[in-house]
């Protein structure tokens, strides 16, 4: 029998999550506890700097976290989005699942929920993440997700203001906006991803 089984995206440092979840299942915990253990392993290890604290700073140099956990038996789900200043995003998502009737909490209120549930408040920035952000600013804020703004987001930092004529031309045709996206995928210099 192939069971128990753990499968996850990516390799390299991400195998720490595979092993943590597998060992959790091998120790007779349930599937929900196992996936949480796997996600927490990657959060603690900052896998590839795309998981956990100290990675992917936003324009303001802040790191925020997103997490989701789903019980395949009940289809119950808990999630947090744009979680600020709390490291254990999947732990907070598990609390959303276990202790609320909601599915997704976001932003500052998600942080407040986490603190009310005993999670610690701390900075998610590191020297590396701040260095990444300062380097981005030094490189004229490239790559950049802004669109139809002034100054030109593909050569200049903000603050930005909208170009009203461009907005009207891109929102009047839903078909053209989805078939020819003015998003990260159309920017060849864009290398960031989730």
């Amino acid at each position, binding site marked *: *029998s*192939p*069971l*128990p*089984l*753990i*499968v*996850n*995206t*990516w*390799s390299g440092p991400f195998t720490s*999550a*595979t092993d943590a*979840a*597998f060992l959790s299942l091998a120790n007779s915990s*349930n*599937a929900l506890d*196992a*996936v949480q253990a*796997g*996600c927490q392993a990657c*959060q603690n290890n900052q*896998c590839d700097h*795309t*998981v*956990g604290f100290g990675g*992917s*700073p*936003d*324009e*303001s140099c*802040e790191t*925020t976290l*997103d*997490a*989701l*956990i*789903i*019980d*395949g*038996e009940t289809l119950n789900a808990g*999630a947090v*989005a*744009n979680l600020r200043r709390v490291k254990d*995003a999947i732990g907070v*998502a598990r609390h959303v699942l276990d202790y609320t009737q909601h*599915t997704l909490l976001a*932003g500052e209120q998600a942080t407040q929920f986490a603190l009310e549930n005993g999670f610690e408040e701390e900075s*998610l920035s590191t020297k590396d993440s701040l260095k990444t*952000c300062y380097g*981005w600013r030094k490189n004229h804020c490239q*790559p950049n*997700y802004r669109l139809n703004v002034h100054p030109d987001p593909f050569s200049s930092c903000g603050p930005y203001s909208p170009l009203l004529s461009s907005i009207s031309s891109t929102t009047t045709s839903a078909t053209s906006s989805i*078939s020819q996206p003015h*998003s*990260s*995928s159309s920017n060849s210099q864009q290398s*960031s*991803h*989730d």
Partner: protein
Amino acid sequence: TLSLIALHPSSSMAACTTTNGASHKIPGRVGDGPIPGSGSYVDSTVGGCGATGDGDIMMRFLPCYQAVESLRRGLTPQQAADDAVRRILARYPDAKTGVVVVDNRGEHAAAASGWEFSYSYRSGGMERTEVVRVKSL
């Protein structure tokens, strides 16, 4: 982004996703990770799915919901993963995607576009985790 699926010997399943999103995003931006059906999805009666990639695009297609529903309709994990990615590529040919699918019997497969994607797995009897490299569609 880490998306992970567990299949317990009792046949119960669960899935999770955790990520710090995309670098240099506009403050307040949320990607596909915490969206059920996008970052991950699971139904113990059929299987589960995890995804990663260009979150602003992927969240418009709910690829993991699509893949699990494809399993429900009788597709294999490989067919379900391919179908989910091809639906995105039909609209966004340059999208970076990675979708891994597991059915409730433990069969797994993945599909990707725009980069060399990989996934990891470990099952009963394996002493260490194995890695699968996935070519872009």
